[in-house]
């Protein structure tokens, strides 16, 4: 289940993945200061921390491949390469 009060984008599938990872709202406040944003209030900081925490954890949890040997691909070119027939 979603944790009550979690930020936008939290989902059931991510709850197990993000155990042990907790982005401290104080870190978010420091990052916001570094970026030059006026400090959000405590509730907003907590929401930002939760939203980022979940997204990062889900990316990390699903990691199965290395990009080390993968050539950077132009995404549009890849879409065009994978296109099939245009009509059924």
């Amino acid at each position, binding site marked *: 289940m979603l944790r009550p009060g*979690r930020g936008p984008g939290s989902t059931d599938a991510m709850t197990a993945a993000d155990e042990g990872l907790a982005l401290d709202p104080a870190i978010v406040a420091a990052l916001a200061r570094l970026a030059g944003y006026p400090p959000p209030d405590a509730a*907003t900081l907590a929401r930002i921390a939760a939203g980022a925490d979940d997204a990062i954890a889900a990316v990390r949890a699903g990691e199965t491949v290395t990009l080390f040997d993968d050539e950077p691909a132009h995404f549009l070119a890849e879409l065009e390469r994978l296109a099939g027939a*245009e009509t*059924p």
Partner: protein
Amino acid sequence: MTPERWTLTEACAALARGAVSSVELTRHCLERAARLNGTLNCFLRLETEAALAQAARADAARAAGRPLGPLHGVPLALKDLFYDRLRVTGGGSRIRAGFRATATATALARLETAGAVNLGALHMTEFALGPTGHNAFHGPCRNPWNPDHIAGGSSSGAAAALAARLTFGALGSDTGGSVRVPAAANGVLGLKPTYGLVPRTGAMPLSWSLDHVGPLARTAGDLARLLAVVAGHDPLDRSSSRRAVPDYEAALAAPLDGLRIGVAANACTDAVDPGVGHLLDAATAALVSAGARQVAVTVPAAPRLVALSRVLLYAEAAALHAHWLRTRPDDYSPQVRARIATGVAIPAPIYLEALQLRPLLLRQFVANVFGDCDVLLAPTLALPVPTLAATDVGADPSMWSVIARLVQCTAGFNYLGLPALSVPVGFTANGLPAGAQLVGRPFAEATLLTVAARYQQVSDWHTRLPAIH
């Protein structure tokens, strides 16, 4: 004359044979919009004088024997994020209220060159960020099937105005489901095309990697006509494909014989409501009765695709809005500001990982899914359309889970750039519409439109009018 019963292509035909003039049709739409907008709030600005002037020019051109194009004289409307050098484009925001661009969006210019009349700016979520249709500055857009329910977002007004028969077609944008979610919630069709098919020049950005411009309409034929007008290479958009645009309307006549419809138990990371599931099963059966073949497929890494899309969205939206986040933070609604500012907490390596994984995961998805089927059928919304109250920021914390669920079935296809078309498949127990997504290989829009057209031949959901009518 009952133009509210006409589809876009029927309206074009009526105009062509002189059964109605563009001024008459435009006035009809404007009057309906003025009458119903107090309830629905789907138009942020009605451009009455400008639209009637456009319509008069269209009528004059027809009288002079100068056909303008496939949309000659037909009234349309666009989400409030397509730049127009002659009109305000506010992006549903306070920060851009009164903004006048110096150049017109390519998609809008193409619609007007094809003869369309622009009725005005449609309601949207502030800066296109949010799937409900709430807007702190303009108020919520309401669902014509029941104004206590959300219209969906962020192209809220596009879908609501179509369902209420205030326009014959609309143009929206889709970064995580913003065309398809409101289309499903209002019982109309909405297409997120393949990344690169429809130019984004002059469409207010939210995420460079995920933004798509897409049409909404009431039939597959209408959608095909609109797509044919707006699709195609634009030298001003470096992410625009040079592929030739096929004849989408001609493709609508193709048979479904043997076409493989893939159904995946895990296509959506959200638990599918039983009522929605029943409607999807019935839609699949209808397609099988029309000649398609049902096959089981497995979608790889579905939850991860949604998470990856959020990483890109948060980071890119924060970069796009950085200047205003520093200088005008109080001019955002608190909710939208929080969502955008989330990007500050996404580490650069995570963002780049999400970006660089995209072609790799696309290859994996196409091989695993489209090796076994031609079109994937999945829910658009896994839950019945919720109420405005259940998704309001003043509601209890469970509100966040409802909002998050709204894009669980759609956002992954923005990440992959694949074409996805939402088609209405009936009504859930609360009386609100439900939609199914048809997802295809890159640039397979013609196939998706053909499947939608065949489905609309064996169903009548698209012919029903909401009670507000």
